[in-house]
């Protein structure tokens, strides 16, 4: 229902942590700007384990931000690299969009 935009590094800011505290089952997460460093953070990795939830949260990463930072080789399924156009579409497909910074 809600698309959460993570705009800060989880190693420096609590943006991801605060987002996860209120995450609802149908929500999705999009990593952008320094938020893409989340792919190396245990908080995000924990919610990716199949046991973590019945319906897994969809997690996207903005590919331009991933590539700029040299994280291409680190990203892995089920985190989906998406383009800016797909980011726009994801915003359109979710009822609410919340930025975390």
């Amino acid at each position, binding site marked *: 229902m809600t698309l959460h935009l993570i705009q800060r590094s989880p190693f420096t800011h*609590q943006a991801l942590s605060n987002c996860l*505290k*209120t995450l609802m089952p149908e929500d999705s997460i999009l990593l952008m700007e320094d938020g893409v460093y989340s792919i190396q953070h245990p908080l995000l990795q924990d919610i990716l384990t199949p046991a973590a939830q019945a319906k897994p949260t969809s997690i996207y990463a903005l590919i331009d931000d991933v590539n700029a930072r040299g994280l291409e080789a680190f990203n892995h399924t089920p985190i989906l690299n998406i383009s800016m156009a797909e980011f726009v579409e994801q915003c359109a497909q979710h009822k*609410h969009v*919340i*930025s*975390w910074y």
Partner: protein
Amino acid sequence: MKKKILVLMRQAPYGSSLARDGLDYILTSAAYDQDITILFLGDGVWQLLKQQNGKSIYAKTHSASLEVLPMYDIESLYVLSDDLEDRQLSLNDLIPGVEIIEKDEFHQIMNTQDSVIGF
């Protein structure tokens, strides 16, 4: 057009202007007769602390500014119990009119909103 708007207030006051900027947005929206609910989330709960006094740092006292909210018919002020506990705070430490909720109650509130904005 009257909409149900949830405002996430997530910043501590004084260190950054975002707490004040969020409040200015809220007061404007209330003046235009919107149905506002406020969740003070994370460090946003510090905005509600009693006994603030901004004078010594050239600032307006934020908690005093929040006291006008009931005059704008904004009476839905929430905090998550986890956020209070993390900061070793209780309801007694906060200005009056705040309600503590759990995560599932937050989800019920979210589901009834037309729009959400976060500061």
